């Protein structure tokens, strides 16, 4: 059972109290962008075995959307953090690197 701590209300909620929102930190491509960009935005998702960022909603609780950084292989949760950010904050990246030395966000240092 996946247990995530909601960063808004601090409740340790288990998977059944949450609603999954898919991959986090997508860049939105709307009207006026190329067809490839729009198509990728709609359909192309990462599916890594390892460190992954996801959106979750505390559906049966405070109702807020938040982000979680976790390992899809081991189910280890590195951090949960508020959704008002375009990329994982430094503290989250540091927490991941502590457990997975050498890991970088989208391949950049």
């Amino acid at each position: 059972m996946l247990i995530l701590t909601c960063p808004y209300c601090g409740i340790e909620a288990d998977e059944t109290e949450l609603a999954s929102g898919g991959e986090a930190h997508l860049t939105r491509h709307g009207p006026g962008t190329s067809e490839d960009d729009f198509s990728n935005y709609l359909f192309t998702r990462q599916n890594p075995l390892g460190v992954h960022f996801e959106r979750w909603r505390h559906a049966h609780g405070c109702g807020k959307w938040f982000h979680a950084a976790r390992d899809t292989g081991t189910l280890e949760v590195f951090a949960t953090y508020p959704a008002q950010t375009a990329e994982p904050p430094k503290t989250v990246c540091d927490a991941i690197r502590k457990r997975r030395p050498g890991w970088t966000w989208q391949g950049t240092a």
Partner: protein
Amino acid sequence: MSEPVSALNHAGFDGLAKVTECGLHGMITLRGDLAARAVKAAATGASGVKMPGPNEVQSKGDNALCWMSPDELLVICDYKDVRQVLDKMHKSLGAAHALAVDMSDARTMFCVTGSSARDVMAKLTPADLSPATFGPGQIRRSRLAQIPAAFWLEDDQSFRIICFRSVAQYAFDLLCTAAGAGSDVGYFSAAPIRPT
């Protein structure tokens, strides 16, 4: 005027714990910046109850303030007084960016009381109900089997539960089943084991 009736009209069940539908309550949802002075004043002024902290309930008599999320409070009052309380809140909010809406008829409230109340509730919700983490004065929004519900402890042996009125019968059936005779798990209610 027709006479308002609650979803299950005070239905009751006596088992491991006493389950009661506790009738109509005035419930007002207040959304806004809970740190804003106008929002705080509207909530506390209308209910006469102190402002609750995160995941807390404050109550005084029949009135209560429940912390529902970082930007949402539930004001509980007498069913008859809702209009009056709401008017008072709107006046107090003034131009503040906030929303106060009467939700009384959308909800149902249950009481579960008895020494096995914790066990009965713990069968239905994934929330940690151990006395060390959940005690009187705290509120938890979670689920009971398949439906969302919020609950808090009035004292160590009595729960108050709020859910949608549309699922009142389901919630009542759940609680009665969980409180059915012969289904005691004795996890929280058992006497502590003393070392020999």
